[in-house]
């Protein structure tokens, strides 16, 4: 009897030049090129610069999946949907980068 798979249901979606890609519970979907790059990045544990934060890509965690989706084109990726803690991390990093701007 196979064990039932426990899934968290977290979702990350990005857009690159009008092309969309998303990750949900270990599965990448969307634009073929972006998804292929994300899968390869997660297989090879590529370290990706996500808005100034180097993150190791994988397909099991939200932060790793975020890095995998950013791997295709980090500078042109727009984060559409992600869990709140991801946005908290990015906002915290932004506040470290630009304290004058974010302190107000």
């Amino acid at each position: 009897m196979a064990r039932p798979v426990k899934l968290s249901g977290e979702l990350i979606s990005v857009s690159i030049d009008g092309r969309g890609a998303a990750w949900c519970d270990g599965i990448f979907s969307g634009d073929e090129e972006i998804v292929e790059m994300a899968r390869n990045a997660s297989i090879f544990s590529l370290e990706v610069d996500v808005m100034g934060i180097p993150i190791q890509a994988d397909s099991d965690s939200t932060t790793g999946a975020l890095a995998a989706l950013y791997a295709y084109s980090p500078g042109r990726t727009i984060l559409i949907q992600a869990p709140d803690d991801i946005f908290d991390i990015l906002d915290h990093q932004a506040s470290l980068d630009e304290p004058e701007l974010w302190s107000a």
Partner: protein
Amino acid sequence: MCRACDDANPRRCPSSSGPLRSARDRSAYAAKKAAGLTKPRRKHGPTAGHDVKGGLDAPAVKQPPTVEELNAMIAEVQHAYQGSVGVPESDPEAYFAMIEKYGSREGAVVALGTAIAERAEMHAGVTADEVEALQQANIERIKTETPEMTKRLRIDETRVEIARNHAALEEARRAGDETRAAELTAKYWELARVRDAAWKDPQYLELKELQNQAQNYRKGPVGDKLRSLADGYQKTLAEVRPMGGDMAFHERSTKKAAASFNVAAQFYPSDWIDASNSRPPAIAKIVKSRAHYFEGATQTTKKRKPVETLYFASADVDLSEDNGVYREYIPHPEKDGYGDRAWIRKDYDVHTKSGSWGTNPAAAAGSSTNPASPSARSGAAPSTAWRPSPPSASPRSPPTRTTPASSTATPPPVSPPTNSATASSQPSPASPRSNTNGGTAAPPSPTAPRRPRSTSPVARRASPAGPTASPSPTPAATTGAPPPRS
């Protein structure tokens, strides 16, 4: 097929499990939604305004943005972007206003790029969508017509028949059946005529040309339209930002490579090129291996110098008598001692190739009477002490060229008072070994070596008194002779 289904003990494929399928569907839907959210929408341009039937969301028909509108948009986005990256004295409020207007920082840049694209398409007279549609139509036509054409002209069948015929012919020849071989040969020529006729079919050739154009975007109507688009983009970018310029390359760069790069440099902003020119000049080469570039690398040029050796000789010996194109003796009074005179001997590396660097400049001065010599071109300072020989230079003068001191970065050699530079104007007691340099104006003796000792002592002795003894009015600048120090 899923690999799990092929196992000896088949089990349920995990991809069909409910949660995974649910995750896949959710991510696919989210990706589709994300793509739709950020897809750039055209507000201007030739393709806009098709929704003339109306509707509340129908965009108004609008002309492409003007240069002033583009500049205003650039200034707005730039100002807001500075607020986002924390530039001092920036305006965070502008950043939030931009986010509210365009959705995100990246969205603002996308909108700006869309506006520039619309103006570029106006200049080009064609849109990227039209070019894409034309290319797609060509591809569809190729896909549709190629099988029909192949069938109509029997291209594949002919190819197969020729191969079979060839095999049968080989077999007949091995068997020694000449009659059969002759029949097959005749059949081959018949098939070859069919094949050649198919290859020369005008419709087939047109389809092949279309196929070539589809594979090579630079050819055909699609290539022309793409070229127009590229020119339109360059024109539009030049309207909002100075573009192009001349790159300053290192002096040892290959001209062809530099010219090729300058063509591409017209697509770069001018301030980028100015910033590059303010750094050490890069060297442009054409290489067959992998090209490379190091930012800010300083190119160094190795210039060989004459080998200098210190010599001592008795005070009554004048080593400068042995001066020539190969070597030169220069007095070095600081090292004099114990009754001996110190000399510095400079050994020049003489190359057979014309125009090479390495000869004694003073010795080869006579051969540089050619106004096209490098020193003449560079306009070396005229020397009052040195007097050139008459222009009746020997045609057998050594094919060496004086390298001026300014170009080799070496000081001009010190010519002793007894050298040939002064010999022509100050007759001194002739010595059979006196001065071998500077006498190239006189014809060499038959016994003189062809090179490098260009003149014979007899000719040099005769030169002051002979018809060629009168100092030539040719200034030293045109002869390229360096001024003697002593």
